[in-house]
């Protein structure tokens, strides 16, 4: 103690002379002597009792009185979740919860419900996760009883109006289009898929194509499976008296149908240990998001306490080894974490993560792995284990530091089917954990050399750093509107008949036979824009043999010439010339290769499939799929053999999703031995985007 005081004084002097500090800091401060502190006994604390009861319909209630503020808070655990979603309708459960709340009930439709609640600053919310759902209500005690019937009515008899379903689906689509903006979001989502499989209930996510299948009928069915007595656990904490509120709850909630209990059953996770390096390229970040690990374990494991102690050593608070070494010592990250997950319902994940500057990615991965290996190779010191244990034991009091926490722990425990004394047993076992135990479980459960590593990073900054971890596998995160592989797997059409239709079309379009001269047409293009329809004059020169395309455009803002030649493109405007951006070049090339004249001229080399005769707008057409670099579908008029309609899919960057472009061809006119459509109307999905009126066409 004396020594410490001397040091402090000496240092203060040192500082004053070297750094010109003015105050004589520290000279009188109380020396730090943590060991010398004598703590009084912890104040007495009675963990509040929970009043429980069950209704005939299966609803279980958990009540704790708490009069600190004049509020009552109700939290319902719903035994349901997105794990119940049919594979082709992922998103059903969470959209149902959303629409229950946002659509209201017949007695309390949306607007009335919202006003009713917000006038009283009350809240009702519905949520749905993977393995459980929630309903909550928070209100002034005076309002609570009045609002209970409202909550029950909305929960048991929601309107689920179609317009709110459409809104929720639209919002989900927007969310999907945004999900690749956040590198950490990409990391945890894709890592989960690597561990559990992308179609597993543990890792799958809502996709545009699963939203397509979500119907009101499916939502009604899910609702009837989820919000029933057998699946509800209701917790109340707040300013009420149990004796007074119990009969009210019994009366109101006894009207909920019992239904059938949903089983929280999951197939055994089929996991094979392997070492792999997986990469998502994201050009707008300067920090790599790294997740690394493998499958974890179950809560019901005799080594649970030792594993929790190991987790605490590895990454507990500011004192964990990852924080100490990877962050404080090496400055490799602001965020670094790691945990062997033991879950109650299915095997958890063992993973560590580190977010580090692109250049340091490999170093950070190795630094994190080093900490795992060190746990396997050396026992933790007795002191480190003691600190770890103390940190857990001394903070136990915070587990029960509020009544709502006591309540939710009890409810969660029962929801997951854990024994009532699971936590007490864990603490008892924790007391017995030895350094050898930690080393043993580190070796038994962690496989630092058989981890899947996922890096979301910027390839232009990363260089070849990842190659030391194996053959880098790119993870495709493109947002799709059809299930992967479906396009290829779709029913194959008749190739011979397809070829035949393509040839018939070629003959009809080119009565003068094949040509290799430049094809020229002039047209007015009427484009829909936010300012209304605008007219753009276009003169286009194309050569389908040399793959040349020149568009001379006279738009309201001036003349622009776009020229694609020998695979590259330029734009000329007001005397300036600049290279065509690559996205636009692709777009322009696609225009050339999707022109029906290109198809006709190359009908000999192209493959096509006949998908059958289809009826559209009262007429019958031959449906042809053309397979080339720019796939498209044609609808050929069997009488004239001319294409009446063409469709293809393309990515719309503004919307962040793929759209269907459909063009209708009318007004066929012949010149120079070539038929050309003099009115072509294009639609993006169902909205008209352009109308091209051709004035002339010829060969040059």
């Amino acid at each position, binding site marked *: 103690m004396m020594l410490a005081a001397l*040091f402090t004084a000496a*240092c203060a002097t040192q500082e004053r002379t070297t*750094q010109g500090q*003015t105050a004589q800091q520290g000279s009188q*401060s109380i020396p730090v002597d*943590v060991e010398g502190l004598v703590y009084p006994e*912890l*104040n007495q604390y009675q963990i509040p009792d929970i009043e429980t009861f069950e209704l005939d319909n299966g609803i279980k209630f958990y009540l704790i009185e708490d009069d600190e*503020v*004049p509020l009552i808070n109700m939290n319902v655990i719903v035994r349901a979740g997105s794990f119940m979603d049919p594979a082709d309708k992922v998103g059903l459960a969470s959209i149902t919860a959303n629409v229950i709340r946002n659509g209201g009930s*017949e*007695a309390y439709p949306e607007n009335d419900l919202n006003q*009713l609640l*917000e*006038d*009283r*600053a009350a809240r009702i919310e519905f949520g749905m996760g993977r393995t459980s759902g929630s309903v909550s209500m*928070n209100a*002034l005690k*005076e309002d609570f009883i*009045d609002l209970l019937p*409202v909550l029950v009515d909305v929960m048991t*008899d929601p309107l689920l109006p179609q317009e709110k379903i459409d*809104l929720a689906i639209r*919002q989900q*689509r*927007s969310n999907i*289009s945004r999900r690749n903006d*956040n590198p950490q979001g990409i990391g945890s989502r894709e890592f989960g898929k690597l561990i559990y499989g992308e179609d597993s209930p543990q890792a799958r996510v809502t996709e545009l194509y699963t939203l397509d299948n979500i119907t009101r009928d499916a939502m009604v069915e899910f609702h009837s499976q989820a919000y029933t007595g057998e699946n509800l656990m209701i917790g109340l904490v707040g300013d009420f008296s149990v004796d007074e509120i119990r009969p009210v709850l019994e009366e*109101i909630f006894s*009207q909920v149908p019992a239904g059938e209990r949903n089983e929280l059953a999951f197939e055994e996770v089929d996991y094979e240990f392997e070492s792999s390096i997986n990469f998502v390229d994201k*050009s*707008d*970040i*300067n920090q790599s998001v790294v997740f690394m690990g493998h499958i974890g374990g179950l809560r019901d494991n005799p080594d649970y306490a030792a594993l929790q102690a190991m987790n605490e050593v590895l990454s507990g608070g500011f*004192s964990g080894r990852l*924080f*100490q070494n990877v962050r*404080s010592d090496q*400055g490799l*990250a*602001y*965020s670094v974490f790691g945990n062997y997950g033991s879950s109650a319902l299915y095997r958890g994940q063992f993973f560590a993560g580190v977010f580090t*500057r692109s250049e340091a990615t490999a170093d950070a991965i190795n630094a994190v792995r080093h900490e795992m290996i060190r746990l396997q190779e050396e026992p933790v010191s007795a002191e480190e284990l003691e*600190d770890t244990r*103390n940190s857990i*034991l*001394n*903070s136990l*009091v*915070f587990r029960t*530091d*509020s*009544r709502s926490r006591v309540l939710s722990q009890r409810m969660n425990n029962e929801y997951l089917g854990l024994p009532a004394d699971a936590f007490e047993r864990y603490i008892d076992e924790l007391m017995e954990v030895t350094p050898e135990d930690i080393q043993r479980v580190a070796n038994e459960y962690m496989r630092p050399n058989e981890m899947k590593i996922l890096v979301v990073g910027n390839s232009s900054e990363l260089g070849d750093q990842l190659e030391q971890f194996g053959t880098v596998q790119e993870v495709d995160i493109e947002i799709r509107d059809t299930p992967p592989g479906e396009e290829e797997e779709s029913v194959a059409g008749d190739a011979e008949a397809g070829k035949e239709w393509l040839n018939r079309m070629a003959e009809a379009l080119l009565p003068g036979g094949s040509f290799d001269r430049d094809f020229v047409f002039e047209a007015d293009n009427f484009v829909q824009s936010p300012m209304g329809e605008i007219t753009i004059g276009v003169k286009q020169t194309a050569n389908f043999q040399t793959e040349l395309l020149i568009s001379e455009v006279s738009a309201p803002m001036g003349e622009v010439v776009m020229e694609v030649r020998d695979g590259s493109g330029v734009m000329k405007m007001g005397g300036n010339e600049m290279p065509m*951006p690559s*996205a636009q070049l692709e777009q322009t090339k696609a225009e050339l290769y999707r022109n029906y004249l290109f198809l006709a001229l190359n009908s000999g080399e192209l493959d096509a499939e006949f998908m059958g005769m289809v009826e559209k707008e009262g007429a019958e057409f031959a449906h042809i799929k053309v397979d080339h670099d720019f796939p498209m579908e044609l609808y050929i008029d069997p009488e004239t053999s001319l294409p009446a309609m063409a469709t293809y899919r393309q*990515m*719309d*960057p*503004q919307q962040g999703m793929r759209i269907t472009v459909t063009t209708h061809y009318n007004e066929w006119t012949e010149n120079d031995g070539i038929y050309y459509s003099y009115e072509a109307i294009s639609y993006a999905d169902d909205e008209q985007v352009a109308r091209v009126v051709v004035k002339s066409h010829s060969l040059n």
Partner: protein
Amino acid sequence: MKITGKLLKGVLCIALFPALAWSQSLEQFEERVTEFTLDNGLHFIVVERNVAPVAHFFTLVDVGSANEPVGRTGIAHIYEHMVFKGSKTVGTTNYEEEVKYINQMDDAYKAWLREYNKFEPDEEKLEELWAAFEELQEKAGEFVVNNEFTQIIEREGATGVNAFASTDATGYFYSLPQNKAELWFMLEADRFINPVMREFYVEKEVIFEERRQRTDSNPFGRLLEEFAATAYSAHPYKNPVVGWPSDIRNTTIQDTWDYHEQFYAPSSFTIAIVGDVDPAEMRRLAEKYFNPMEYRDPAPELLVEEPTQRGERRFVIEERSQPIYMEGYHTVNNQHPDYQALNLLANILTNGRTSRLYRRMVVEDQSALQVGAQNGYPGSKYQGMFIKFVIPNQGIEMEDVENTLREEMQKILDEGVTEEELERVRTNARAGLVRSLTSNSGIAQIMAFAHVNGGSWKTAFTDLERLNDVTVDDIQRVAEKYMIKSNRTVGMIKNVQDSSVVSN
């Protein structure tokens, strides 16, 4: 099952009731609050709350990034990180030796910086200087007891250990079992009376990572940083709290000492302790441990005033992420009479499912996935801004988003807001306060901030009473006064799939 709505009829007659029910807290708290100021100017607020045998400790320092010197943005945040490095006795095996190397290391870094910042630095010399710096850094590191401060408190059961730096203030906090309050006093006084610049340059690497994580690699982070930098001309609210990269690089230990000297006077501190504690004992310990903190002149005041904006400002970030729209208007500081009316206006626009912009944009025309408004960004101690942001739905044009915001504001300018709307946001503001008074940490924050901003913890409650004075005319008046074009900044992210498509 159907439960028909007798309740709806009952709504009107009790609509005035909630205002009363939500505002009974001031008297309750007066009995439980003890406050005192030490001779050196340090202020304590102690709140007895015997819900569980725990206590929360919140040290609020009335200094933030707005106070930073030119060229040293981020220093408030760097200092905040240093506070976790211990003291002259905690976290070191021998401070007397350690500090010699720390000082030499700083000199070596400054030498490297001088070369680095030359017009044409000599690469070879740079490498030499860096090697010399690293050698000293390593020597200083030999005395470090890694994270001893947090080791001690976590071993004793501390939870929620953390800190923050903002434009207006810096805060340090954690909770302990109530019987260990003295440990907090001992270590908290020590780390502010005997601060150290331990592992300074490695910690700056950590801070660079924090910047990459929150700002550089995050679209919203990039937008916010650009927004403040565009909206402000003179006031330091234009600078990001984390600091500009070159400022972080150029900041030395010496700079950080200077900053500490100037701004961490005892009078800058307000400490709130909330939990199962004995106020008399807290006072005894406060005097014992914090009286030795020497009086220093109060921190210099920031006198920069943002000049009146002369015309609308506007920027577009073209990048690969999805679109976000943001706009803001310069308004007032949090003690200005218009502050509360502006807050209520923000809530009328976007708080809850009955709010105007939520109804119009999220539900009716479905142009927005999310919409938000807030007064007092990026801070409120000085003249902040009233901001709105919109996350548009797929395929929505930014022009439409902007036009809708204008239309909705025009409605308020033309027709004002209703009494019913105003009463609803008032009720919700009261409820918000009551809800945040249900945890030790919530109470500590509210009381400490109220003391710093309003001069007393009681202003947390009296400000709510002031809400009653705000009329619908006030709402219309502040809209007219501040929501004008020349006072506006608009910023947005526009989605461009290929980075080469960025227009000229």
